[in-house]
């Protein structure tokens, strides 16, 4: 899909900007494939519709010391 391809390319350019200096050409090619796989997985997730009330599974417990 065109939008997926554009997103992958854009995100790859960001990785290249940030870390291109420490990666060889062949490694960057592998990183590009990795970015494409990540975007592909994200597209699968985005295709599933959720309700506004569907909360993420996260664990957070507010902390307060006893007696203070």
């Amino acid at each position, binding site marked *: 899909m065109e939008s997926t391809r554009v997103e992958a390319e854009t995100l790859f350019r960001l990785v290249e900007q940030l870390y291109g200096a*420490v990666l060889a050409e062949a490694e960057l090619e592998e990183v590009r*494939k990795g970015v494409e796989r990540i975007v592909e997985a994200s597209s699968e997730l985005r295709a*599933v519709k959720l309700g506004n009330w569907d*909360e993420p599974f996260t664990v957070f417990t507010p902390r307060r010391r006893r007696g203070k």
Partner: protein
Amino acid sequence: MNPVYASVREISEAIRTGETSPVDLAEVFIGRLREHGPKLNSVVTIMEGRALKEAKEAQREIREKGQGGPLHGIPYGVKDLIATRGAPTTWGAAPLKDQVFNHDATAVMRLRRGGAVLCAKLAMIELAGGMGYRQPYASFTGPCATPWSLKHWSGGSSSGSGSSVAAGLVPFALGSETWGSILSPANNCGVSGLRPTYGRVSRHGAMALSWTLDKLGPLCLTADDCGIVLEAVSGYDPRDTTTTRKRYKYKVEVDEFRLGVPKDALDETQEAVAGSFRESLRVLERFATVEEVEFPVFPYEAVTRTILNAEAASAFDEFTEEDLARGLTAPEDRYGPYARTILLARDYLKALRLRARMAEIAENVMSGYDAIVAPARKTAASPIDQEFRKVAPGTAKDVMGALGNGAGLPAISVPNGFSEEGLPTGIQFMGRAYDENRVLSVAVEYQRRTDWHRRHPPAFKA
């Protein structure tokens, strides 16, 4: 009594009757770790001083107060991502080979409390595969072999835990699983490996790969031993707030079990794996109802993979920002962490929201069953010098792995046959959350009716 290849339960009984002692046991297994560990690349550090000290203490306690429990005086090893005082904890990674913690992980403390004797830190895939490894050479200690063939891989990332138990170098070991890292070495090495419910065992002191997916669990010769070890290491820990307050007591339940087999369980499996599995089903049908089940279409892999990628990107931030990955052993691990740095927060959160739905799907499908049964892996051990993903390059999804780990469900892999090359195959039983006893009960009954777990690699005689 020869303790090599004896189960934890049998060794414990031999200690009780005075046939052997903790110090004798420590000496026997340290000897085997020293002799055979290098052949397999399964051992990072032998902790002789600490082992003998703990063994002497156990011996004195048993003499003065009697045997405290089934692990009192039993030697063991831990995957080298579990913190231990008195030895480096390398996470399998060359840049961290001198990393030392001055505390024991909670699981190690609990085993010590139960009288077990820590003998060794065991080899693992570097950073538990967190950089996207593709081959057995992804460890600074070298590729770990299955004792059934030195030319084949032990599986990973709990490589040394599986290999060492299978070769009789320790009676049991602790490993960890984020996605497949206990079940894979159990399969490749022909041992029993239990992935507990998420939150059953404290992760305090263990390397984090993915905070909401990581689980510690035992690898043993028998399913029964896995239950014994799980009881010892499980329980609430204030230092890991994700641990459950539900107390775990190992108990084998006798029942008319109901088992479900996924419709696509044998898709793209090796012929030998499929053959072993069909034979296992015939055994299971003698004491359980076996029915076909189908999981609804859902992006299981995308959910679990996205969570893993996002959390690993954060957990190993310094590996990307300080370019520490450059010092890793496998070439693919040196660039592996960079792609996932662009994973968007909204996609991670979407995965966490879908995870709730995934857990619901698991409950809906599994509530009528004691366990879902499938081959532990689609192949037996792959050649040690090949990329394992190329050995079975099919397109079949790993729904059991993605759903099981994403929803935090317990599963055990036990040996169920051999390939034509003499490599073990495995069968997995996956249960509902906190149903370890159901899963273990089915596996114990399966092992009561088969002898695959009593076969040991001929090159590593007792």
